[in-house]
């Protein structure tokens, strides 16, 4: 099953090229340079991971992260930062980011993190299914 990823960064050339490289690695990628558009896309589609730049016009990456998590607390978000510091990492994690990466990065590292997000999403989905089955069994009294 293909990993479904949303890329959000105001550098058009960056996301276009990264999207192509990720597609070459078998992922299904959507990309946008607009934070507002990203929120709309995340509402309409289900993604395994959102790769989000921390510094963007319109809305700061942290604001976008908070808005994404408010709508879907289980969404896996990987933050991209210019300078990754421990402090920034802690801040991102506290706000619900799954992980963070410093630009420029190795695509192998990003791919690993996306795979982890995909697995995480599948575990959550399985847990939800099990809870649903349990609920049905209880209701039907089987």
């Amino acid at each position, binding site marked *: 099953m293909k990993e479904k990823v949303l890329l959000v960064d105001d550098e058009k050339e960056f996301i276009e090229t990264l999207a192509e490289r990720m597609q070459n690695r078998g992922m299904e990628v959507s990309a946008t340079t607009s934070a507002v558009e990203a929120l709309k896309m995340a509402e309409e589609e289900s993604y395994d991971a959102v790769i989000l730049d921390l510094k963007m016009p319109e809305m700061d990456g942290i604001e976008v992260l908070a808005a994404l998590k408010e709508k879907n607390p289980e969404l896996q978000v990987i933050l991209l930062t210019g300078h990754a510091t421990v402090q920034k990492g802690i801040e991102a994690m506290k706000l619900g980011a799954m992980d963070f990466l410093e630009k*420029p990065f190795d695509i192998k590292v990003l791919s690993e993190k996306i795979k982890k997000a995909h697995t995480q999403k599948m575990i959550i989905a399985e847990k939800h299914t099990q809870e649903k089955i349990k609920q049905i069994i209880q209701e039907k009294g089987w």
Partner: protein
Amino acid sequence: MENGFNTIAEKGLGFFGKITASISHELKNSLAIINEKAGLLEDFALMADKGIPLDPERMELLAGQIIKQIGRANDIIRTLNLFAHSAEEPLKNTDLVQVLTLVIRLCSRFADMKSVTLAPDIPTDPVTIQTHPFFAEHLICHCLTAAMDWTGMEKKLNIGMEHTDVDVRIHIFPIDIAKQSDKDSVPDQETQMLADVLHARVEQNTVSNMLSLVFPRSIPSGECCPGA
């Protein structure tokens, strides 16, 4: 005055940090693009090994894009270098057009972050005044970034310059003065201290919705800046 200089030196260090941090982010963005473009070339080479033919036009396009990004990164470093050297310059005859051009470049990322367009219409010929370049950059940048929060619906700031034999005026407009709060109005303490050190004035015109920085052509000897 000594206390004022200490505060200005401290604020100046903060300004230097803010600008260099912003520049390093911009540089990182450029490096990230180069990294992905080079990575894509590597992907194509690996695909060619598996029998997928290379597209020479695509290769040429990618190489051109990498060269463009190297030019962008070089321009960023050149700007950083100019800015860094200005901090070691004493009170001297300074081209205010060059200073303003540098400040607009340094502030362009802040403007982008706030979706504000900077529209400079400034002289091409040098306009020389006697001043301290770094403090002048700090004052202009401080006022320009503050004005970014006071734009109207159009989110655009025009930047102009006028000069006489006595002074040089930098105008930033239109600004919506009603948007200023007690906290972020200009001249604040930082602006006033910088203006005092440079013998400059910061004026707001409520009729023309203009923020103006007035620099004297010269500063009385021995009255500006530590070490001057």
